[in-house]
């Protein structure tokens, strides 16, 4: 048998007793009138600060638009849109990746036009210099007056070992937050397996994002072979070619290393 130490005679203030169906005793009420506002202060502070620490997203809204350019199929379908204005340095083209709506590849109506100048209507999203246009069709057009006859060849930059992450080319610039990393892995896998181009995100020494299209040694798309590596930190060693502000890295997917 043991005694309980709190069984000493209660102080007068301790004698107040709360039961749900009667009014709050004064002392308890006084206490709660101090404590509950404190909880509300916590609610306000959390409500203000928690969303401010989510720093991995961009505004990411789709904007409908019409684009005219040269449709290219390798390694993934993309549109080369002639740049307007002065282009003393850099590429003559902007390069927009193409996907279908939802988590899908561009339909045959688009890929049938590869190699031609086309007009595309669709929804575009961009993040930094990575742009993707979701579209359902492509209408052949004449080459616009003044447009370059053909794209300039890529510039081989040599072999590089790059650390980064494979993400899908649509959600990352799009409406997903963060659109990368483990929390977005399942979504990115669905996108890439559905035919949205996979993109490799790496950073230069200054911390600027660099985007790479992935191709195997023969320059063919590797999207479906890299699903299990999506969103993981990996290292790719391969030959890098620069096309304007977009890069291509050629390497056998079996040589990708998880870090």
């Amino acid at each position, binding site marked *: 048998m043991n005694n309980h130490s709190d*069984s000493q005679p*209660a102080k007068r203030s301790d004698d107040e007793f709360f039961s749900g169906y009667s009014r709050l005793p004064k002392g*308890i009420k006084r206490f709660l009138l101090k404590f509950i506002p404190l909880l509300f202060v916590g609610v*306000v502070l959390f409500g203000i600060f928690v969303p401010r620490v989510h720093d991995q997203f961009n505004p990411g809204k789709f904007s409908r638009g019409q684009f005219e350019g040269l449709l290219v199929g390798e390694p993934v379908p993309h549109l080369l849109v002639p740049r307007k204005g002065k282009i003393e340095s850099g590429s003559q083209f902007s390069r927009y990746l193409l996907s279908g709506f939802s988590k899908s590849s561009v339909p045959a109506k688009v890929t049938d036009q590869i190699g031609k100048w086309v007009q595309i209507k669709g929804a575009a999203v961009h993040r930094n210099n990575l742009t993707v246009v979701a579209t359902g069709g492509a209408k052949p057009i004449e080459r616009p007056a003044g447009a370059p006859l053909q794209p300039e060849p890529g510039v081989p930059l040599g072999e590089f070992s790059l650390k980064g992450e494979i993400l899908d080319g649509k959600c990352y610039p799009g409406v997903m937050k963060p659109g990368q990393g483990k929390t977005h892995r399942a979504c990115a896998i669905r996108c890439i397996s559905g035919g949205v181009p996979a993109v490799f995100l790496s950073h230069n020494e200054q911390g600027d994002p660099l985007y790479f299209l992935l191709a195997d040694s023969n320059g063919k798309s590797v999207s479906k072979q890299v699903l299990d590596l999506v969103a993981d930190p990996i290292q790719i060693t391969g030959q890098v070619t620069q096309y304007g502000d977009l890069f291509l890295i050629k390497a056998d997917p079996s040589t990708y290393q998880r870090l």
Partner: protein
Amino acid sequence: MSVAYKSIQWNRTKIIYDLLLFAAIGIYLFLFTYSAKLVSPDLEMRGLDIRAFGSAAFILLHVILSIGPLCRFDRRFLPLLYNRRHMGVTMFFLGLIHVIGFNLSDIPVLSNIPYKADGALYWYHDFGNVEPIVSLFAGNTHYGSLVRFPFETLGVIGLAILFLMAITSHDFWLANLTAPIWKALHMSVYVAYAALVGHVTLGAIQTNRHPFLTIAVGLGLVWITVIHLLAALQERRRDRAVAPPATATDHYVDIGSINEIPDTRAKIVTIAGERVAIFKYDGKIAAISNVCQHQNGPLGEGKVIDGCVTCPWHGYQYLPETGASPPPFIESVPTFNVQLRDDRIFVSTIPNPPGTETIPARIYPDADGAQSYE
């Protein structure tokens, strides 16, 4: 305390409680949205709703888990415990909206209010080449790795437990499952908490390494762990408090003097491994089990009101002489025979079956009411 089950037995306290709860959640969700829009005015908010509801649920879970230990430290927190189940059910719905979303237009009377929050299942897993629910589990299957562990599954485990708790939260289930089973089921909230800490740590924190998130979740875990340990230590210290030598005579033990017990209050002692509450009221001493039949509340920390021992948790009442709730209520707890020898209280070590009438020991046995022992 009811013989007929109603969905909720509303009273003034519960209404105020729920209004404060919903106001706090409303303020949090509003500020979350407003504050995020300050980051970028044209931000696509639908993906952020997932975070708003998920974080609201996680923060509320910390409040829920804090109430129990706080009540052990200071009884003035007890009004927060009174309606804690509404907090739990609300928290489950916040978690559910985090997953499946919410559209006010689905509720007939509220269909004019344009409010919609998309859940993670729709936002991340829909529109692909498999069903969203398949994507949820197939997106990551690296259960053998801590760093790559599928945080989604941990969230599903947490939500499944909260669902079981929410659907069994009503007193109907408490009575039909019996208090010990119900209590055990509802203790699994700690499994849910562990799963959800894992869900947040291996999900949001692993992806977004802002120190505030990591520190906040870490401090939350430390806070919950420390207050539970301190409360457990305090309980243990009380159980181990030095007792007067046990003088078992005819199965009766000396539990102390009548002067130790304030009027209408009790002294709790552990007799043969069970806590017994010995009440002093109306010049009498009577002993009943310390364990309320409703939710195992500590009756000995209650008070005799209108002639009934009243549980400090939810106000369930028992007559001290019989251990039975006054009619029409049907709950009853074991009673213990009591004797007074001078000013010493002796309690039988053998409990009577629940509801057994006992004769309370009288402090003032003299006809003229003269105080005999005080």
